[in-house]
């Protein structure tokens, strides 16, 4: 077996007295969906924030095995540098560019690729042929993702005016337009109706099959997680309490206990319901 795309070792994040992430180990592989689950406040989003350069981890190593650039230690990069390695995320509380159109959102995502082609705007200002070709290609990329996410009809709408479910899709389309290596999704099914959730599942499975990228998925919808994940990591109170295939996780006592410990027992019901 080849080495995993992402190798997280001993990730620790402390906020003052609060140990939000406590020595978590995690791997993500290409062509695999790795789910990260755990009760609310377990530290999942914080793990994403460390991984994508928004927080500097207190300790730990985040190794990305980049096919072209070789091994990269993500925790050493500047915030925006992580995305440039191909690790791209979405946010639990959607962050679009609300008064820009959907298409513009997807073009902003291709900034890194387009900037050199506009030769720092000079070629763009003169509207040279090379630039025009690059822009057309970018629009085509955007169009592909809009089509896949069923957003073509709203391409010219302001992103902020769309329905919640659509905004979630725009965020995924925007992340995919960057041509990522590892896609990190923070609760992408939150607020979606069952039909939208099924479409999302199909989409993720499709991306896994076609694009050769790794997917890290934080999700509370256990049905979705159990259906499409190849590997599941469970965290509780910042620590990793279990990891394995969906079948293994479903029967793991510590996991059941972590969820039962919650006043809100809905999650367990969903976890059980996922066993179909």
């Amino acid at each position, binding site marked *: 077996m080849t080495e995993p795309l992402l190798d997280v070792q001993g990730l620790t994040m402390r906020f003052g007295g609060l140990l939000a992430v406590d020595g978590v180990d995690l791997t993500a592989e290409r062509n695999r969906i790795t789910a990260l689950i755990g009760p609310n406040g377990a530290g999942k989003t914080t793990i994403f924030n460390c991984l*994508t*350069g*928004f927080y500097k981890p207190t300790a730990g190593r985040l190794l990305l095995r980049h096919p072209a650039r070789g091994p990269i230690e993500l925790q050493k990069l*500047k*915030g*925006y*540098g*992580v*995305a*440039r390695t191909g690790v*791209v*995320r979405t*946010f639990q509380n959607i*962050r*679009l*560019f*609300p*008064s*820009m*159109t959907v*298409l*513009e959102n997807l*073009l*902003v*995502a*291709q*900034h*890194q690729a*387009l*900037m050199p082609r*506009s030769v*720092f*705007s000079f070629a*763009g*200002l003169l*509207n040279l042929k090379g630039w025009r070709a690059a822009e*057309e290609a970018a*629009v*085509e990329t*955007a*169009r592909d993702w*809009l089509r896949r996410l069923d957003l*073509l009809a709203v*391409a*010219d709408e302001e992103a902020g005016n769309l329905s919640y479910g659509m905004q979630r899709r725009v965020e995924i389309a*925007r992340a995919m337009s*960057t041509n990522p290596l590892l896609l990190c999704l923070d609760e992408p099914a939150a607020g979606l109706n069952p039909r939208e959730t099924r479409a999302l599942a199909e989409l993720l499975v499709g991306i896994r099959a076609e694009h050769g990228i790794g997917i890290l998925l934080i999700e509370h919808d256990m049905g979705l997680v159990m259906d499409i994940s190849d590997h599941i990591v469970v965290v509780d109170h910042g620590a990793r309490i279990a990891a394995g295939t969906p079948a293994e996780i479903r029967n793991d006592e510590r996991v059941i206990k972590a969820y039962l410990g919650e006043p809100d027992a809905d999650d367990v019901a969903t976890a059980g319901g996922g066993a179909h």
Partner: protein
Amino acid sequence: MAAPASTSIPVAHRLRDAGIAGLVAMALAVPFLGLRTVNLDQGLVVQANLAYVPLAGAVVFLGRLVLGLLAAPLAKAVAPLAAWRPPAAAQRLRAWGGPLLVLAAVALPFLPFANRYVIDLGTTALIYILLATGLNITVGLAGLLDLGFAAFYAIGAYTCALTTTQLHWGFWPALVAGGLASSLFAVLLSLPILRLRGDYLAIVTLGFGEITRIVILNWQGLTGGPNGVSGIARPTLFGLTFDRRAPAGGHTFSEVTGIAYAPEHRLIFLYLVILALTALAAYTVARLRRLPIGRAWEALREDEIACRSLGINPTMVKVSAYASGALMGGLAGCFFAARQGFVSPESFGFMESATILAIVVLGGMGSQAGVIIAALFIVVLPELARGFADYRMLAFGLAMILIMIWKPGGLLSGRLPTIRLSNAKPKSVAEAA
């Protein structure tokens, strides 16, 4: 909210409301309208004009009452106007709006009513349009509040003044130097402060604006201090001057073209120079908005965190926004210096920064057409009110408040998308056709 007056509010309520407003107005009027301290030989004395107090109360009472009664029918009458959208054909014409406007502006000085005064006013308006076009990049597009924009204006002006008087450069190289100096200054200033967010950034830019002005005011050796710099080179047309007599070794426009000398020629030439600069700047911004850099500016305004998550370096985006805005500020400053032939620090105080910012915000942030309308408004309105010279700044302040209350997003607040998928023809279809 400005109590949305509906006709259902009982009259008694309205009367009470207007009555309170009138009483407050009377109270406010006492120490300023009712009593007036005057300097006399023996010192200060207070003169009482207490008649003003009930007058102020009555005016406010009636004003409030009438406005309250009229607000609802007025709003109803204006509603269809506000909801009106130009038809699609007119939208397509929009692409021609810019060039048509420039053509009209070129024609202006040759129209029968265009006297010196009109041309001069047009030149001033164009300077403000250029300044606001620059500030619009920083504030309107990138969303970085800048309260010290006059600093860049000043640096452009003084660069022009000093290079032409001390180094004997011509206007055109000085213009380039002015723009670049401003831009460079913006980069140096912005690097340490870009970590700051929102209002903190605003207050620091305010500080920089003041520092620049104070340094210019006090660095006598270089800037001449409060006396300023005079004898700044005038713009030339391929080396031709617009003077009556040619300078040593030079030629004048009238000598070479054979057109009889007229002092208006210089005015018209200056007007055309600033028109060309402004049109070029507006065109550049319009193009930049459609380039990665311009989209990154707007994306930064919308959500800096999302920008970072897409690999965009916010610092570079901010610096480029400041530098581009300052470049235009510097060009405007340089032109201003050459037009006046003289600069002094008092042209670059905070009120100047506030005026330019007011143009951007009143026009509608990010909107070029808005900038043009607001600049004309701000330059021309006080001129129209010249007869009431004393009251024009009062009216100016009042107008700023009223416009913000009427249209908080600015006069033209809609944002035009930079690209439409429906216009970009899909490759497959294009090939099939």
